[in-house]
């Protein structure tokens, strides 16, 4: 250790020199006079001084050449005229691998919401209702409990493709996948002691509408995570900082954010979130609960342009609320023939799984498709199969239908939903 000291001192000295250089940048800069406004630095070529900005040292930023961003869903202004932020989609076309970067994770709220500013030192989680011991925990106490770290997707039940959508961010952008860390809800419920007849829970947030959802006890005891971290750091404010639940495989609205309360109750409570998601038909209701087996080709996808015929690695994502992805199949001829895609890594339960398929395009018009088969044998349906099930066109319930992308002979890629 002692022998390292001089090196460290030298580094600190160098850091100080660089910091000094930064303040003197106007005099020493090789690119000329200091810009009148700091903003115009963006337009300059990268100079060595750029590597020493406090911003880059304290919390790394991506390259200025990487510009992938989220977009409001369905062109709805966000924030809207009431100042509320609505659904914002993930740029899946740019995603590599299974994990969505935290900054690009999709964001949805019950009715539009202002993200609350919460001091984690003041935040509490209460477990109460039909339990032997009502308990209230600080964030520090929750972090002392046994934890799990798991990869899970969260998808909005409103994530549905239509002929109006041109790009994948519009048709599929409201699903994202992160590595979540926290305490299993079952751990907390066992500590509190669930009483006989406690068959449901109500999970509730602290934001302005106190968004709440009812969940069956079977799910609560199975795999719900009371999460305080995502992708190796505390939750992002839009994702529920400092505490949320992650309900693996269920529609996104059930993963209550800014969590402050779990109440054990004896029936479905028809809370704020539940009321808005009622269905008239029981099949429709069932399809809105657990997300079906689903996949989508991200490259090439709607709005992209192939530069010419030749080799392409077709890439995509697959997931299911029923468990792990077992298999993904790809068709490059509009569904006449199907081939197994390569899966990246070991598929995790209720998590995005990246897949790829080697394809040599001959330059003729074709349609690309993918379908997911999950570990309990559920198969992703075509839109025609869904219409046949309901006896009418369109997709009811959460939409997990196969997405067709049409490649024109000029290399342009379009949504092929009629």
């Amino acid at each position, binding site marked *: 250790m002692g022998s390292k000291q001089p090196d460290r001192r030298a580094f600190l000295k160098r850091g100080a020199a660089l910091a000094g250089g930064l303040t003197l940048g106007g005099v020493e800069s090789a690119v000329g006079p200091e810009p009148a406004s700091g903003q115009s630095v963006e337009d300059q070529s990268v100079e060595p001084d750029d590597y020493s900005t406090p911003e880059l040292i304290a919390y790394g930023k991506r390259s200025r050449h990487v510009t992938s961003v989220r977009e409001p869903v369905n062109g709805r202004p966000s924030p809207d005229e009431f100042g509320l932020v609505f659904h914002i989609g993930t740029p899946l076309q740019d995603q590599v691998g299974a994990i969505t970067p935290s900054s690009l994770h999709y964001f949805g709220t019950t009715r539009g919401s202002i993200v609350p500013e919460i001091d984690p030192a003041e935040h509490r989680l209460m477990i109460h209702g039909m339990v032997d011991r009502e308990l*209230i*925990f600080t964030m520090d106490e929750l972090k002392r409990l046994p934890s799990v770290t798991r990869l899970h997707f969260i998808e909005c039940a409103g994530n549905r493709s239509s002929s109006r959508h041109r790009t994948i961010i519009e048709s599929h952008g409201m699903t994202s996948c992160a590595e979540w860390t926290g305490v299993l809800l079952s751990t907390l419920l066992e500590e509190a002691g669930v009483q006989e007849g406690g068959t449901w829970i109500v999970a509730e947030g602290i934001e302005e509408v106190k968004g709440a959802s009812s969940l069956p006890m079977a799910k609560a005891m199975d795999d719900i995570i009371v999460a305080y971290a995502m992708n190796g750091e505390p939750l992002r404010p839009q994702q529920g900082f400092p505490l949320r639940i992650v309900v693996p495989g269920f529609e996104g609205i059930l993963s209550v954010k800014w969590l402050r309360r779990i109440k054990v109750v004896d*029936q479905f409570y028809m809370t704020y979130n539940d009321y808005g998601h009622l269905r008239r038909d029981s099949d429709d209701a069932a399809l809105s609960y*657990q997300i079906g087996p689903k996949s989508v080709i991200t490259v090439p996808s709607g709005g992209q342009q192939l530069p010419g015929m030749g080799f392409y690695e077709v890439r995509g994502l697959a997931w299911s609320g029923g468990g792990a992805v077992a298999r993904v199949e790809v068709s490059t001829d509009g569904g006449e023939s199907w081939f197994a895609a390569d899966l990246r890594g070991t598929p995790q339960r209720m998590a995005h799984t990246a897949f790829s398929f080697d394809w040599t395009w001959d330059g003729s018009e074709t349609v690309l498709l993918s379908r997911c088969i999950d570990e309990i044998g559920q198969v992703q349906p075509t839109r025609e199969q869904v219409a046949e099930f309901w006896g009418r066109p369109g997709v009811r319930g959460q939409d997990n239908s196969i997405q067709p992308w049409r490649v024109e002979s000029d290399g342009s890629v379009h949504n092929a939903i009629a």
Partner: protein
Amino acid sequence: MGACIMRSLKLLPVLILLGTSAALAQSPTFGLGRTPTTQEVRAWDISISPTGLELPPGQGTAAQGARVYRLRCARCHGSDGTEGRAPRLVKRERPADTHPWNLGRILPIRAPYATAVWDYINRGMPLNREGTLSADEVYQLTALLLHWNELIAEDEVMDPKSLPLVIMPNRDAWAALPDWTPGMPRLLGYPH
């Protein structure tokens, strides 16, 4: 039921012992957390059961609600709940079709229980001023919406006892969620 009572009786001595140290209780396995006070629980216990279990004391009529509505709601929902930028609050007249699912997504029509209307107004309204209505005002506004949709009379008093007894149009017309168990498919036979 008999077994439940037996169980409770057996637990009685334990409960008496626990009663003396309840304020210091921590979780049994990890020894973390503490027992919330009654006040702490009451302050956060705002999700209202269909039976009205959590409804706070208070009361109100539609006639009283009309005044609160003018002051706190009309700016966004319009003077009579049928116009304005915010969602409509009164059903449309469609004499030929009275099924609740064909009358639009209107809170007092879609909500299967009157308690859900109270809960919604209490936690969600007015937009950006949530939490500023008193319990009496929420009873009054709930009564107004129920009256506008021809479910109660203008002078009918809504309180913790009467509110859960109002029979809503969608009381039995909504689909229950499946009895979920781990590893189940979301819907048998879909679509194969």
